């Protein structure tokens, strides 16, 4: 019963934050709604016992990513409110909402009308995994440990241990590739925002910089 209440509160925060992002006139408010949504997702991770991911969710998403958004908003001075009443492209809103409803119907249809699921009548859970991924891709690292197999007073290993074993075991090549990806992204960002004539730069008087 407690988990239902926690789920309900977290889901409300997640969806409320998402609605706030979509309908905020001010980009700063949209970014703050995004933080609320990310915190709700972190709570959902905690109640599914993905403690490390909840931690990373708060540090990376609610911390770094949203701060980056806010930094760009403040740097560019685009924190003006946007008039949502005018619709520059006629029919964009209604078409967008219609497409969104189509996507929702598609995903929910796929969820409830698709093949073998996870219920008792749908076979074992291994069949579910194969139905989902098309192949046997199990890491062999469980999320939950059988309490009866543990010795007296022994605590089950934390989720981060299994995550690390999987990440640095069979996924180590992909992990190294992400290092390359992050390096390329950083270099790309530097190249994109570089001021070409920065050598003979003229420094503006404070407050006179053109936007």
């Amino acid at each position, binding site marked *: 019963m407690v988990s239902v209440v926690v789920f309900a509160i977290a889901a409300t925060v997640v969806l409320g934050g998402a609605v706030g992002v979509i309908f905020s006139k001010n*980009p700063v408010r949209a970014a703050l709604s995004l933080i609320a949504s990310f915190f709700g997702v972190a709570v959902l991770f905690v109640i599914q016992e993905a403690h490390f991911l909840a931690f990373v969710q708060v540090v990376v998403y609610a911390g770094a990513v949203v701060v980056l958004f806010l930094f760009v908003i403040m740097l560019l001075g685009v924190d003006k409110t946007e008039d949502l009443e005018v619709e520059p492209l006629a029919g964009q809103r209604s078409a967008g909402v219609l497409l969104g409803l189509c996507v929702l119907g598609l995903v929910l249809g796929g969820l409830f009308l698709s093949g073998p699921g996870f219920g008792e009548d749908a076979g074992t859970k291994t069949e579910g995994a194969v139905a989902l991924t098309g192949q046997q891709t199990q890491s062999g690292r469980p999320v939950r440990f059988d309490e009866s197999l543990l010795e007296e007073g022994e605590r089950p290993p934390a989720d981060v241990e299994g995550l690390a074993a999987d990440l640095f075991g069979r996924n180590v090549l992909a992990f190294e590739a*992400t290092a390359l990806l992050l390096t*390329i992204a950083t270099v790309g960002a530097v190249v*994109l925002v570089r001021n070409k004539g920065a050598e003979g730069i003229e420094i503006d008087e404070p407050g006179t910089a053109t936007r």
Partner: protein
Amino acid sequence: MEVTETWYLVLSAVLFALGFTGLMIRRNPLVMFMCVELMLNAVNISFVAFSGVLNDIAGQTAVFFVLVVAAAEVVVGLSLVVALMRRNADLASDDLSVLKG
């Protein structure tokens, strides 16, 4: 009453659709990026839910990689926005057509 994985998957579907709708109806590139982040988070919720129901940590590893790719995507996307908004602070998504050269 117990929270089953179906609850998480339905929540994930609704969040994904909300992010998609925002991406379609908003014209500010910054807010559109935030909507993409919402969609990525929706997928992360279902990854963790599947990880729980299959009792396999691989789903959480996938979330880890999504997180890294999302961070890289935000860096490159925001630097594009900065480069373009320096010229025109009232940038709308249509103005990104200058990228086609």
